[in-house]
């Protein structure tokens, strides 16, 4: 009973490791391959987060087959990365909007006000 459980946990963790590694690689490869700056923003912010998430999940559970408990500190890093990834992406997108995108290609806001990064009246940061 315990032997099959150990094997199941190990197989599960190995599958997560392989999947996470492939996703991390895809994220960095997308950064090289995609042609437009805005497109390049998509690959690393998410695929890489999945890769780190996989590494952290394995790190939290890897004592389980030997009868150890779950380590909870990984949860902290996971939450932190999940919370900060969108903020990083938003700041990078704003930088791209200001520096490298043609404002004429953007759609209208539909509210009568301009987009915040491009408008004259900047809102408080």
């Amino acid at each position, binding site marked *: 009973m315990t032997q099959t459980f150990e094997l199941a946990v190990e197989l599960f963790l190995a599958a997560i490791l392989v999947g996470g590694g*492939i*996703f991390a690689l*895809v994220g960095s*490869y*997308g950064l090289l*391959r*995609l*042609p*437009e700056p*805005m*497109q390049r*923003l*998509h*690959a690393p*912010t*998410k*695929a890489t*987060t*999945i890769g780190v998430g996989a590494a952290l999940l394995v790190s939290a559970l890897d004592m389980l087959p030997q009868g150890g408990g779950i*380590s*909870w*500190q990984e*949860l*902290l890093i996971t939450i932190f990365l*999940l*919370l900060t*990834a*969108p*903020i990083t*992406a*938003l700041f990078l*997108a*704003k930088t*791209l*909007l200001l520096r490298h995108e043609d404002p004429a*290609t*953007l*759609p*209208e*806001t*539909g*509210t*009568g*006000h*301009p*987009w*915040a*990064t*491009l*408008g004259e*009246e900047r*809102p408080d940061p």
Partner: protein
Amino acid sequence: MLRRLFPHPYLTLTLIVLWFLLVNQIKVGSLVMAVFLGTILPHLTSAWWPDRPIIRRPLGLLAYTALVMWDVIVANFQVARIVLFMPKAKIRSAWVTIPLDLRSPEAISLLAGTITMTPGTVSSDMSACGKALLVHSLHAPDPDEVRDTIKARYEARLKRIFE
């Protein structure tokens, strides 16, 4: 009195839990430090967070988190496929404007975070009045469909939770 001591009770609770996660052990000394930080930090940061956020349905928030987690995993495969196999000329990126029905700042930032974490879309900017989001979609042959999906799948749920 209690309200003045703890202006953000959720924040205090979160800080205590986070401190225990950080030290990774359960001791009385850690509890003292956790309560101390949980009391003092909301006061130090209250200038940037004057209102207390209203969550009408905390359970709905849990269900929403599960839904988003699932979507992140499933949709990551789509982005991986686009990055790896789709010819560069065939990737149709598009800007999408999403008019917002949400008004509470916490709900809007949660929606923007969700849009970024769900692969294929990145929320890039907000209109100066705060009533529309600018979203970049990696591969969207039909931009209207992206907008409708986001509004129906995420915004409607957030509206029920927060308003």
